[in-house]
Every structure is written in C-alpha cells, then in structure tokens.
C-alpha cells in the first residue's frame, strides 16, 4: 500500500543526521511558516524542497506526486472558501465584495473578493507547512522519532503504544493487501453490492486477526520476559552535522528578519 513512503525515511541521505536536529528544524520552520507572510512562505516552500530533494535525495517524482496530491486537495477546497450565497435582495450590500456572481431563484451566488484573498493566504500557508511535515516524514525513521519522544519525557504509555502500533500497522497492512488481492483474484469488488460485501468481510477479518494476534503476541512477549514496559536500547549512531546546523540557523534567522521587515 503505502509501504514505500516509510521506506525513504530509512534510505534517505539525511539519515545519518541526529533525529533531534531534523525534527527541531522542521518544527521551527513549521512555526514560522504558519504565521509568516505569503512571500516568506514561498521562500520556505523552495528552501525545504531543496532539503528534501537536494539534500535528502528523495526522488523528485515521489516528492512531486505527494505535493501534487496535496495541491489537488487545496484546489478543491477553494470553491468552498470563495463562494458566498446571500438572498437576492441583499445583493446590493455585497456588490463591493463581489468579483462576479449569478442569481439562482431568490438567491444571489457570488465569488467574494475577501474569500479570494483568504484562499490565497490559506493556499500559501499550506504549501509552506506541508514540506515541513514531509521533511519529517521522508527523513526521520519512526523508530528514531520514538527515541526523541523518550528523551523528551513523553509519558511511557504513549511511547509504548506508538511502538507497538507502528509494528502492528505494517503487519495488518500486509494482511489487508494480501486479503484484498485474494478477493480480487476471486472476482470480488465487481459490483457495488459485492464491493460492500467484500469490504465488510475484509474489515471483520481484520478484527478477528487482531484478536488472534493479541493471543499470539502475549505468548511471544512472555517468552521474552515481558514485565509491563517496552524498554528498548536505541543505538545513537547519528552524527551531528555542523554544516546543516549552520544552514538551518542562518536560514531561520533570515526568514524571521525578512518577516519583521514586512
């Protein structure tokens, strides 16, 4: 399914960097991006794309397609932001705000000027924030992220649950893909009715499998001396990079100064 998204986190060129360095950088830029002006946000989009494609060597096709999907969602959300409806007798009141519109029965439907401005703002903000999320997604393996969370004293229950969920998610995704392939090979999903039936079978199989897994895993854990916690030894093999630290520091300071000049 989406296994390959996770694969890049383990193979990218920024892998040797400490996860803290990458995570803090991405979060700081995310913070700046969510309050900055559109011009600054544009710069952030370009800068982080350089990090993802240039430094981390994520194939441009992969990065582009993820960004493209996001762009489609953004575009489809624009009509909801720019369309306004008022009753026809109020038409005069909104004339100043209307770029164009048409009358439907007793209603006047128009494209609002303020809505367009808002859509542009939202679009730029999302386009600047999304690469920050993608930098985390593409360059920090989830296992290392868990290490950072432990270091930051996130409650143990939460980290344990994240650790186990990460393991189970891929187990179940595998079961789900295989079962779905098996259903297709036997002609499932042909009609809408059979689709619903097949999906229902699939979901209930997943529940049954998860309960079976529960029993199996509790035995598996017992053999390994389970005592209530999921402590593991995380090997900090990463190397702090001064070059990337300087670039991120200078870049962020530059962005803030640019922002203050507006």
């Amino acid at each position, binding site marked *: 399914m*989406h296994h390959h998204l996770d694969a890049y986190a383990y193979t990218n060129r920024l892998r040797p960097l400490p996860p803290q360095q990458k995570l803090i950088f991405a979060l700081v830029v995310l913070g700046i991006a*969510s309050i900055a002006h559109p011009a600054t946000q544009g710069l952030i989009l370009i800068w982080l794309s350089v990090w993802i494609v240039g430094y981390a060597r994520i194939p441009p096709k992969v990065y582009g397609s993820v960004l493209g999907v996001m762009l489609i969602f953004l575009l489809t959300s624009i009509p*909801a932001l720019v369309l306004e409806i008022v009753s026809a007798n109020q038409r005069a009141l909104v004339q100043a705000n209307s770029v164009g519109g048409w009358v439907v029965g007793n209603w006047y439907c128009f494209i609002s000027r303020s809505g367009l401005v808002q859509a542009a703002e939202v679009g730029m903000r999302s386009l600047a924030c999304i690469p920050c999320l993608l930098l985390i*997604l593409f360059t920090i393996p*989830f296992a290392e992220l868990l290490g950072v969370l432990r270091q930051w004293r996130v409650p143990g229950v939460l980290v344990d649950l994240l*650790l186990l969920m990460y393991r189970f998610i891929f187990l179940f995704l595998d079961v789900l893909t295989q079962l779905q392939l098996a259903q297709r090979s036997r002609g499932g999903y042909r009609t809408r009715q059979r*689709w*619903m039936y097949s999906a*229902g079978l699939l979901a209930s199989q997943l529940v049954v499998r998860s309960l079976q897994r529960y029993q199996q895993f509790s035995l598996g854990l017992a053999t390994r001396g389970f005592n209530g916690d999921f402590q593991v030894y995380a090997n900090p093999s990463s190397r702090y990079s001064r070059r990337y630290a300087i670039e991120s520091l200078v870049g962020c300071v530059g962005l803030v100064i640019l922002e203050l000049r507006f």
Partner: protein
Amino acid sequence: MKKHQGFSLAMMAGLSGYLVVGSPAPAHAMHIMEGFLPVGWAIFWWVVYLPFLVWGLRSLARITRQHPETKLLLALAGAFTFVLSALKIPSVTGSCSHPTGTGLGAVLFGPAVMSVLGGLVLLFQALLLAHGGLTTLGANGVSMAVIGPFMAYGIYRLVMHLSGRQSLAIFLAAALANLLTYVVTSAQLALAFPSATGGVLAAFAKFAGIFALTQIPLAISEGLLTVLVWNWLQTY
C-alpha cells in the same frame, strides 16, 4: 447578459465537477490538512483537545498498570483503526472514501480510550501518509477522537436502552459518529473562515452543505459496514 450566462454555466459545471471529483475536500478522509487553519485556531483546538488527551492517558495509565497486556490490545485496536481508514469503501455518489472506524472503536473500547487512540492514529496518518497534519492535529483530534467517539458511545447506549436492538444501535452509532465528525469539521472550518456577509453560520451552512452531498451517503455506508462487521463478529 450572454457573457453572464456563459459565466454561470461555467460556474455550474465547475461546481458539479468539484462535487463529483473532490469529495471531502480540505478534510481529506475528514482531516483538515497541514497549514489549512490559521495559527490562532490551530492552537485553540490543541488547547481544547489536550484535556481530553490527558484524561484519556490517565485512564489508560491506570488500566495498563493493573493489566500490562492491555497495551497490546490497545495498540492492536489503534493499528486496526489506522488500517481500516486505509480501506476504501464506495459511497453512493460514485466516489470512494474511507471509514473512520471510530464508531466501532468507541463501542468496543469506550470513548476515553478512543480519545488517545484516535490521536495516535491521526499522528500516524500525518507521519506515514501525510494525511492531516501536526498543527491541525488538535482540531482533527477534537472531531475524530473526542466528539465522534463520545457521540457513538452515547448513541449506542441510548438506543440500546430505548429499543434494545443492537444492529440499529450499532448502525446509528457508527453512521452518526461519522456524520458528526464531519459536522464538527465543518464548524471548525466555519469558525476559522467566517463568511464575509453571513458570518459563521452562513459559512457553516456552506461547508456543511457542500460536504453533505458526499458525507451522508458515506456515513450510511460506514454504518452498514459496521453492522456487517458486528454481525460477523457475533458468529465468532
């Protein structure tokens, strides 16, 4: 006049195309995407979500201290919810979308647990699939991990109390939890982007109206699916 007609024709075509293609638009699988909310609102929803998260965590910590193996069960439930949301189900308009699975989870595990598990599922969706986001996790958490599950649990209890018909209770719980999740999402968007003329209410009507076309059939689909799953589970 002619120009005006052409324009409205194009608008109608665009609108219908938009409704067919872009099912639950900024709320992909009903999640508000990264950076979509203004920073004030993003923080606000985080602040609203945090107490529920802490409350859920406390009750989880209590349960897992007594029975450490429940961590396994909870993680399995979370993974199940995540994987279920990756499953595409057909909705009546012809588009496909994803079930939230929170209704089933809430009935099986209770709403307190789901307020944490839902949040974890959202985190995985953001970090593994880029669905939703980190800044908007608070807002999504409130709609999907808090209000949806509470609603589902309440409805399930209520209907069981009133009619005692389990299928009906499950159907309503799952369908209405799904529907309410989208109503809350619409409200969150309306609050953040009020209409220039009609204010928040008009904006809500707009967002809710647009999503209703795809979400109501989807909610029914999820309800039916959950009942199917529930009935199959009864045979085990």
